[in-house]
């Protein structure tokens, strides 16, 4: 049970407290709406994250399988050397979108795939399996970039959700009950004072009448 605040039981305080309760209630209602919307967004992103992770892992699995075949055909050292010859700088265009004040990254479709000539290794000394391996890894990278975007969104939304939930709970279970308890206490105290006054007046009246 919430304990009442220590406050002097006056009518002015009662009015102030009623105003505070209505503000807290308004804040609570709006924050709860925000929390519900965040939950919806969070689960939506989570579903996308699961799908994107599965797709990325499947693609990576396929890429590593082709890489093993490439190692077996070309030899490990040759494959690694060819890989060292390639140069890559991936340019990502990152913008942002806002979900209820949370900045969520948006990565434009990265142009990861390129043709065998652009990769930089010698086509004369390497097997076609290396091309296939590169292609598979490029596709996996594309999926991983998309997955990173979704995971970053999920983290950001989850963090905000946690904060909002804490605030909603603080209002719902601590502040509002405490204020209502205090209002109840002041109302009771004021009623009590009114009754005391009434009795006192009656007593004074009786004494005055006795004296007459």
């Amino acid at each position: 049970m919430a304990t009442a605040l220590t406050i002097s039981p006056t009518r002015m305080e009662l009015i102030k407290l009623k105003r505070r309760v209505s503000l807290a209630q308004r804040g609570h209602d709006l924050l709860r709406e925000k929390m519900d919307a965040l939950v919806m967004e969070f689960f939506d992103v989570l579903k996308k994250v699961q799908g994107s992770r599965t797709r990325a892992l499947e693609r990576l699995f396929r890429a590593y399988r082709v890489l093993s075949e490439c190692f077996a055909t070309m030899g490990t050292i040759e494959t690694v050397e060819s890989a060292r010859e390639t140069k890559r700088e991936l340019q990502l265009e990152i913008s942002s979108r806002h979900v209820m004040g949370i900045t969520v990254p948006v990565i434009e479709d990265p142009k990861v795939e390129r043709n065998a000539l652009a990769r930089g290794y010698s086509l004369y000394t390497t097997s076609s399996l290396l091309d296939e391996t590169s292609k598979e890894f490029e596709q996996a990278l594309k999926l991983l970039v998309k997955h990173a975007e979704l995971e970053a969104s999920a983290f950001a939304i989850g963090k905000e959700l946690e904060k909002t939930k804490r605030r909603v709970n603080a209002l719902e279970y601590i502040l509002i009950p405490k204020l209502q308890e205090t209002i109840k206490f002041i109302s009771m105290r004021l009623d009590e004072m009114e009754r005391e006054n009434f009795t006192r007046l009656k007593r004074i009246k009786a004494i005055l009448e006795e004296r007459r």
Partner: protein
Amino acid sequence: MDRLIKLELSRLNVHLPEKRMTLREALSSSKPEVMTRNGGKHALNREELEFLAGLLPEKNWNELQLPILIAFEPKFGKSAARISGKAGAYVVSKILDKEEAEELLIYRPEVAILRKKLPTTTQYVFIG
């Protein structure tokens, strides 16, 4: 504590755009984005813009303000949201397969569908 609540309430709508842009402006822009009240940038997805353009007759492209606002107001009760603006309500009614109206009242599951289809071209607004 009251100041904290007031601060929290004032922060609820900082993600809203300073100025919305019409569908025509967004489609003609090479990088469609709007500035938010907290100084950030909110990018609008081109695929969504093209999807909206397909739903709305071309003569009305100037009427559709983006992002479309999904307004939550406690007076409508929990989980009900309002879509204002004729063009916005028209597009949303098409997406949700609802009856057309000047102002549309939609509910939580419909909001989820709408947000799934238009994650960047819709925004939440909380009205106290």
